């Protein structure tokens, strides 16, 4: 494959999609997620959190992702 150059990461095309329902897909996602956790460990408040709406849960999730609280 030839070398391709980009001016920014944003300009790089995403990886090609994989075949739907290929059994490897979930395993790759799990491995990739484990790698991401290893590269940038974050800690979230353990336990059970209850929300009246999914939007409320999303806001909390965004705070966790932004702050790693």
């Amino acid at each position: 494959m030839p070398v391709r150059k980009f001016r920014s990461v944003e300009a790089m095309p995403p990886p090609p999609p994989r075949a739907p329902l290929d059994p490897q897909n979930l395993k790759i996602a799990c491995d990739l997620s484990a790698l991401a956790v290893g590269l940038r460990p974050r800690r979230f408040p353990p336990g059970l959190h209850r929300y009246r709406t999914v939007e409320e849960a999303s806001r909390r999730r965004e705070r966790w992702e932004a702050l790693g609280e």
Partner: protein
Amino acid sequence: MRVLAAFARHGVEYVLVGSMAMAAQGLVRATRDMDVFVSPDEGNIERLKAALREVFHDPAIDEITSADLAGDYPALQYVPPQHDYWIDILARLGEAFRYSDLESEVVEVDGVPVRVATPRMLYLMKKDTVRPQDRLDAETLRQRFALEEEK
């Protein structure tokens, strides 16, 4: 995968949605959560708790109740003791989606049947949410699976 294998062993009625379902449908990316839609009936929630207890030794699992999921708290986030990811447990999404409404299909991974939402279902669930990533996902799904744009 340990959680999904435990769900299968305990006969939990669930559908995988969110980023992990996108991955199963071929749109793979890293994520720190797993989203599952569950049937909120009492028997199923007891099976769900038994499955989670098999993977995590955590008294917080006892706090998951059918009454919450079927009532005022249809969205639960469970963060296991190791703190580095979480599981979203959903029983309904606004007034539009309940467990019984979901279209799903099964993929078998290393002998474990995993029930995942169809691309159309994922598109419908993501297209009107407030989260920018969800709207991007919806558009990606629509293009990848040649789905009709729905209002």
